[in-house]
């Protein structure tokens, strides 16, 4: 019996000491998580620290993270933070400021693209995160059609302008109209100029933001008063509706990015405004009929910015090991390997790295896309605002509410939330 007790105590002792050398991270099931998982043995060999990544789908992440962050002894040594949650997490005091560690170890944070450092790095001058990957939005289109001399001639004849990577919203919409075609002569469009992601909630919010920016609209003024219920906002809704009705597949008002990208992957569409991280998937023969045919460019007027940051929660049980991991995962060597595998980096230099560009010719366009991306309003109630705006946009797009009325209703809720958060004076 004594021996058994001793053995148990020893086993427990080992278990706790082993725990101290394991970094647990909750991550989303996305390609960049897989790329990092594949590189983990290198980190183990270098430092002897185990990293356990628990990858789950996005919708469960927030509700799984919060109890761990509020507990005095959280289960995650390091976490990844979506830009949606930045204000909430920092305001609640869940994240550890990294400035002292950055200074102590001479970590160069100037390598990050400023658009991403602002989004998922610094909050009011304090660095809480190192930017991990970006999911900024842009236009994914069929390069083979764009470069087809026959199409180019027909486009020039019809619109009096060249068919090329679009730099203005008007130019892009002409292309969308041009490529919307009825190929089997049944009177209905079956090759689509664009595909909308109109599902109520964040799907429509994210995609519509690009329409808003492209029309010159903004979400709010310097005093956090809503401005998206402007003429530009109404025009953005009308463009969106127009695209669903005339240039897109049936049912796009209920699509999220997965349904939309399935249509594009089947070779049934010319383009769509979406997350740049989907691009790599279209070159995967297992899931795509358009391998090698897709191109990507920035949204005219700037697309919607999106990204994740690495952070150490205050509830972390082993902050030093977590920091070691973050330093390693954001080191030049690891970043380059991840980007070569297809990742979406946040450091500026890697977009111009000759080896990376040789393997991924779209890097130049991606850099512009990320650098010109615009920020969605991030504050403590971002998630709630997305819900309200998503509902109103979807009401307008499905013809149940007048666009201006819908935007006014969303603006009223936005103003209320901005006041509640102390942003609007």
């Amino acid at each position: 019996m004594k021996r058994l007790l001793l053995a148990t105590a020893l086993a427990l002792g080992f278990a706790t000491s082993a725990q101290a050398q394991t970094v647990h991270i909750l991550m989303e099931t996305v390609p960049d998580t897989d790329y990092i998982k594949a590189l983990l043995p290198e980190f183990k060999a270098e430092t002897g620290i185990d990293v356990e990544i628990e990858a789950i789908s996005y919708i469960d992440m927030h509700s799984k993270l919060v109890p761990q962050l509020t507990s005095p002894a959280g289960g995650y040594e390091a976490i990844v933070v979506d830009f949606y949650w930045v204000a909430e997490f920092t305001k609640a005091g869940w994240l550890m400021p990294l400035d002292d560690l950055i200074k102590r170890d001479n970590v160069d944070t100037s390598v990050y693209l400023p658009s991403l450092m602002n989004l998922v790095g610094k909050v009011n001058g304090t660095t809480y995160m190192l930017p991990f990957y970006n999911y900024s939005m842009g236009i994914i289109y069929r390069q083979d059609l764009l470069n087809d001399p026959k199409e180019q001639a027909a486009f020039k004849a019809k619109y009096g302008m060249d068919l090329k990577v679009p730099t203005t919203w008007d130019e892009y919409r002409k292309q969308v109209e041009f490529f919307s075609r009825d190929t089997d002569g049944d009177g209905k469009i079956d090759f689509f100029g664009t595909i909308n992601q109109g599902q109520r909630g964040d799907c429509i919010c994210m995609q519509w933001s690009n329409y808003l920016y492209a029309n010159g609209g903004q979400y709010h003024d310097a005093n956090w008063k809503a401005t998206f219920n402007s003429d530009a906002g109404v025009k953005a809704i009308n463009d969106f509706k127009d695209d669903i009705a005339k240039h897109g597949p049936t049912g796009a008002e209920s699509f999220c990015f997965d349904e939309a990208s399935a249509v594009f992957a089947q070779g049934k569409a010319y383009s769509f405004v979406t997350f740049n991280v989907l691009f790599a998937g279209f070159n995967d023969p297992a899931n795509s009929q358009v391998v090698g045919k897709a191109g990507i460019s920035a949204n005219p007027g700037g697309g919607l910015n999106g990204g994740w940051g690495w952070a150490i929660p205050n509830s972390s049980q082993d902050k030093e090991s977590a920091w070691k991991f973050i330093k390693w995962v954001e080191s030049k060597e690891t970043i380059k390997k991840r980007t070569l595998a297809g990742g979406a980096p946040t450091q500026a230099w890697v977009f111009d790295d000759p080896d990376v560009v040789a393997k991924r010719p779209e890097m130049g366009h991606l850099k512009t896309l990320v650098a010109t991306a615009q920020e969605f309003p991030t504050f403590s109630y971002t998630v709630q605002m997305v819900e309200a705006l998503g509902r109103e946009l979807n009401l307008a797009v499905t013809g149940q509410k007048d666009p201006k009325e819908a935007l006014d209703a969303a603006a009223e809720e936005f103003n209320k939330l901005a006041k509640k958060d102390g942003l609007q004076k």
Partner: protein
Amino acid sequence: MAAAALTTNEIIRRDRRFGWAMTAPGLAALMLVVTGPLLLTIGVSTCDYSLLNPGCAGFVGIDNYRSAFEQAYFPESILVTVKFVVAVVAIEFLIGFTVALMLNAVTRFKNIYYPILLMPLLINPVVVAQIWRMFLHPELGIVNYLIGLAGVPKVNWLGDAGIAFWTVVMVDIWHQVSFMIILLLAGLSALPKEPYEAARMDGASTLQSFFHITLPLMRPVIAVTLLIRLIFAIKTFDLIFIMTRGGPGTATDLISYFIYRSAFYGLDIGQASAISVILLLVVLALTAWLYRYMRSLA
């Protein structure tokens, strides 16, 4: 034979003590996992409680209840929920009872059709919703492809405000109707045979037997089946969350998803708890009414 010497009273007392002993662990567990959270929810519903700063930041009385009705689209959500519950329970009952009556006459192949019937029920609702979302993809889904072969134009299953509600009802029926069938079938097969034989001797038609024997005898089973299904239907969440997110617009915005949004998007746990308590009261009232109705039949 000591037991033989016991008085009736002692036996009853012993039985009672034994009963308590047997149920105590279960009751304790129930107290812990049901009553505890329930009381906590009622407590939180009178609090200013935000996830941003977990904890009761002050007693607000019935403010959370009052403000629930002032929330945008809360009345719409209640209306949609009532419509949904009535639709799925009524249609599932009609289909379920018809199929159960038909199957009750079939004595062979029970071990074939039972598993087939049970199959949809065994699938997790999230999976059901995902599968149907793929089936119903307007451009790439198999449903529109098949009806296209028959010359029917593409249906906008989830994107049209008028259709989406019925699409979700249809998927729910597909998923849950076998629950009705199985329960009603169990009830039917337990009915005594004698009344039917007597009725046949008296020359009653099949229809007469159904209305005068089957229906009255089945009433308690029907009441329980409807009650259970009703409670489950009110709680429907997964289908909506995966398939429509309450859209298009507010066409499928069920109350459970409304509560989820208050809690996890609005971060307002006080508000969400208040709406949950309101929902609980409605369900309780329904249950009490059905229970009394059943007692009145007995």
